[in-house]
């Protein structure tokens, strides 16, 4: 009898996996179904390369927003990833159990704070500081990078920390037995071994930074022009979609979905680049 139950449960797992995967496929199909007709009608190239976006005069070009997304995402990674990974290393290797027990739930708390709260903090505190001390409108790439960097910290920290802590103790003992210092052990043994976990953390964190809408809308100023300095205001692809989706009809709505398709491609490129860079490193 036990083996029939076994077979049934394995079929159920298969069913679960396929239904979950089919949901992912349905969503992807939904995005492409709404966005692609517009792309084919207007041509992908001039949609991507023309900087003019003015729905009222049917001008749909998202070049400025692609740059905006790139700047903001890279900025968020510069702020979030090194800070996140080093904090994860500290918690996994250097902090003792009680500190870790207290800090981990608190850090994950950051993931639960509504992004609108981050947006407000950005508008009320961060933007004025940037405006007074660094000049420019205050609503800028820098503000978005800092806020998004903070928002992806919990994702990067918890996932990297778990992958470091999940390593078998023998890895660490082996290295220490050779007289390596804690830092050498981390650098030469633990980080390379936990690389796939840390990579997953970075990719999910990057996904979160790209996908963030509410906070970004409030603190980037959403100007539709090509950004030259980190202090310029900029509009990312995600904020463009979120900003205008409530009011978009017909072509305007299709253009926004086309932006979502481009975003999907943009994320795919970024993911492959990150995986490629990490694979080439060792």
């Amino acid at each position, binding site marked *: 009898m036990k083996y029939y139950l076994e077979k049934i449960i394995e079929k159920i797992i298969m069913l679960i996996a396929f239904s979950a995967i089919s*949901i992912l496929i349905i*969503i992807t199909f939904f995005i492409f179904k709404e966005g692609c007709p517009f792309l084919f009608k207007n041509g992908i190239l001039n949609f991507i390369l023309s900087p003019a976006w003015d729905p009222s005069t049917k001008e749909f070009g998202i070049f400025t927003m692609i740059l905006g997304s790139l700047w903001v995402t890279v900025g968020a990674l510069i702020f979030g990833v090194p800070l996140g990974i080093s904090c994860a290393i*500290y918690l996994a290797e*250097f902090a003792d159990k009680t500190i870790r027990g207290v800090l981990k739930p608190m*850090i994950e708390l950051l993931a639960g*704070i509504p992004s609108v709260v981050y947006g407000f903090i950005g508008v009320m505190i961060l933007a004025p500081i940037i405006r007074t001390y660094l000049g420019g409108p205050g609503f800028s790439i820098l503000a978005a990078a800092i806020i998004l960097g903070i928002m992806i910290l919990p994702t990067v920290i918890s996932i990297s920390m*778990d992958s470091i802590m999940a390593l078998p103790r023998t890895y660490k003992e082996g290295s220490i037995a050779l007289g390596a*210092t*804690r830092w050498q052990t981390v650098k030469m043994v633990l980080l390379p071994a936990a690389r796939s976990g840390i990579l997953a953390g970075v990719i*999910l964190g990057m996904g979160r930074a790209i996908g963030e809408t509410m906070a970004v809308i409030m603190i980037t100023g959403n100007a539709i022009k090509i950004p030259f300095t980190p202090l310029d205001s900029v509009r990312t692809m995600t904020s463009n979609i979120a900003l205008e989706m409530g009011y978009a009809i017909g072509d305007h709505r299709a253009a926004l979905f086309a932006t979502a398709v481009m975003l999907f491609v943009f994320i795919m490129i970024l993911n492959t680049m990150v995986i490629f860079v990490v694979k080439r490193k060792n």
Partner: protein
Amino acid sequence: MNVRSKDKIARFAFLLAAMVTILILVLIIFYVLFNGLRVVTFEFLTSPIKEMGKEGGIFPTIISSIYLALLSIIIATPLAVGTAVFLTEYTRENVATKIIRFGANCLAGIPSIIFGLFGFVFFVIYLRFGWSILSGSLTLACMILPTIIRTSEEAIKSVSYTYKEVTYALGGTKLQGIYKIVLPKALPGILTGIILGMGRAIEETAVLIFTAGLSIHIPTSVFSSGRSMAVHFYTLAREGISIEKAFGTAAVLVISILIINSISYFIMYRFMRKYT
């Protein structure tokens, strides 16, 4: 610079990084609680919304948030962990698994507004659920699926192969290997994924406006619309109705998340003691 001092510098750098993160964390929490707690009274927690949120409390939104968070986790977790087990245990590393994993990564980056619209078109209209807790939870579940799948997969992969081999050598089946030793040992990683997923589900606004709706009443059934705390904060703050009440809602949200996280860690450590 000899090895000893390099080690000291590195150790100091990591400590500094952790301190900066903690400082930011404390500042944000302090900012939210400082602005919010002034408004939070027992009456604020228990009375219904009045005057568009200018007066009255946020009790209905607390209930809606609990419904939405729990239901989305209950739907997403089995789907995600099942998929993670399937991808790591029952398929060999082939093109299909790579595409699925890659797709999950990309979907984790899709903005929530798109999930909101997907939920609106698919659950609210196509499946005729209307603006309801059910549409909201199903859409949230779809949104946090990629995160939980990825974290569970990493956790399962990190369980060393010898435990499975021992189980097989003792005559145990593949499935017994999974639920008797692999999943329990991978639980911390899976729980992290669930908490991150729940965190994202609780703080979500754009998705819920299009799917769970904005009703200020306590949801009587899965089919009644409900406004979550985050959505309430969103409307109060952005429509400029009342900043104080908005931050009051945010304070309650932050405290409830801290409680949920700590409880789930407490349960996990008690469960894990049996396994270390």
